[in-house]
């Protein structure tokens, strides 16, 4: 009897004993989860993602809880929607349903800003290879530069699932830090005269038919050029088609609200669950965070330099600051451009142009990832 009682008590104490004897990584990760929860809940940094990620991280680092073992609920969530890339794709349907591509359609050439804003991805790929990461891991890390959480998760879960935790956290953290990262780069690369260039408001020129056909055309053309990325392009465009065709309002609302909310919760928890101490606390994690930061800086550099080129080519009709909005962080990057424009000229409203470049960045990031995956397929690496 006494032995049974002692064994029972030992079972109750085993978690604490483990934590304070051999659970240093768990302890550190519990502190990190606390930081993520603090940033999300108290500081409002991407709370919809950081709160579930932080809590998932907390759950998985309580010793001996077995939540990520076969049959554990976090493992079930992970396999249901992350291992098979379902959750990021469902989020994309919601993003498509929320996004108004109107400003982009008014001036379609602005899509090219969305291409310039992805250059950082490819330079970072070289840097990741230089640091010794294997090819597919380097690709997954470089996609942090898409500044697009679901795309980063989609690529990482397919080609570097072991790096999913750090890549996801880096992607969402840097998206939230766009208003801090971009302005110094924008200032450093532009002259005072360039920053105060006023751009003409574009005339309304897009019919509803064009808006409805746009997602179909993007899906078909994008899918033909880069078929491996069709799930990414197809889901964002499905959401946008539902929004623009106007006959499935219930589905559109469900996509941008209920489905997006539920999937965001499950996705965040499942990502947090990949942040188990022994897997997360490695030098590679630091390298991933460093490379992610470099990628987003390079995206901004390339975007602004492309803006300067367009400014020169158009005889000064384009403010190069809008190049910084060619990344996918929507609508943050557009707001940064608007704020910076007003900072140097209180009557210079760049928001509509920046919003066009920013939605171009959303398409650009998905296209860049799609192109990468199709090139990998062409090389026989996937």
């Amino acid at each position, binding site marked *: 009897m006494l032995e049974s009682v002692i064994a029972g008590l030992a079972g109750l104490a085993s978690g604490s004993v483990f934590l304070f004897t051999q659970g240093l990584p768990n302890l550190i990760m519990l502190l990190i989860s606390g930081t993520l929860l603090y940033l999300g809940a108290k500081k409002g940094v991407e709370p919809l993602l950081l709160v579930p990620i932080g809590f998932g991280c907390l759950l998985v680092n309580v010793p001996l809880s077995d939540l990520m073992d076969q049959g554990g609920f976090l493992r079930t969530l992970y396999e249901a929607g992350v291992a098979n890339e379902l959750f990021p794709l469902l989020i994309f349907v919601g993003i498509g349903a929320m996004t108004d591509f109107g400003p982009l359609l008014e001036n*379609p050439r602005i899509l090219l800003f969305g291409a310039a804003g992805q250059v950082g991805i490819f330079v970072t790929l070289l840097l990741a290879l230089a640091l010794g990461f294997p090819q597919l891991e380097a690709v997954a890390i470089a996609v942090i530069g898409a500044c697009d959480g679901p795309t980063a998760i989609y690529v990482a879960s397919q080609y570097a699932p072991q790096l999913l935790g750090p890549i996801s956290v880096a992607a969402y953290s840097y998206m939230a830090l766009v208003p801090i990262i971009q302005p110094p780069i924008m200032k450093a690369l532009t002259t005072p005269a360039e920053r105060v260039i006023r751009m003409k408001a574009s005339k309304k020129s897009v019919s509803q038919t064009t808006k409805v056909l746009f997602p179909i055309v993007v899906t078909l053309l994008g899918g033909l050029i880069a078929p491996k990325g069709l799930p990414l392009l197809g889901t964002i465009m499905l959401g946008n088609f539902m929004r623009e065709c106007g006959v499935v309002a219930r589905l559109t609302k469900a996509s941008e609200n209920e489905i997006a909310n539920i999937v965001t919760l499950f996705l965040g928890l499942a990502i947090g669950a990949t942040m188990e101490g022994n897997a997360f606390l490695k030098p590679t994690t630091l390298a991933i965070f460093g490379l992610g930061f470099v990628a987003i800086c390079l995206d901004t550099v390339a975007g602004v330099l492309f803006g300067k080129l367009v400014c020169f080519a158009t005889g000064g009709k384009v403010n190069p600051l809008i190049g910084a909005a060619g990344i996918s962080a929507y609508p943050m990057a557009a707001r940064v451009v608007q704020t910076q424009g007003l900072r140097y000229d209180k009557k210079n409203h760049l928001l509509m142009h920046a919003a066009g470049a920013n939605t171009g960045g959303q398409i650009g990031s998905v296209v860049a990832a799609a192109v990468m995956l199709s090139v990998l397929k062409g090389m026989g690496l996937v």
Partner: protein
Amino acid sequence: MDKWEFGLTMMIVGVGGTFLTLWILSVAVDLLKKVFPLAQQENTAEKKP
């Protein structure tokens, strides 16, 4: 294929492919706008509250 050949190929084809794809899409949107122009009626209707 060594890592530098891989990296440079990805960079050249990746950047080029992304620009090309988005340029094609922008041309397609231009065509859509030409084929389905904004009708005067639609424009006026949009301006009304």
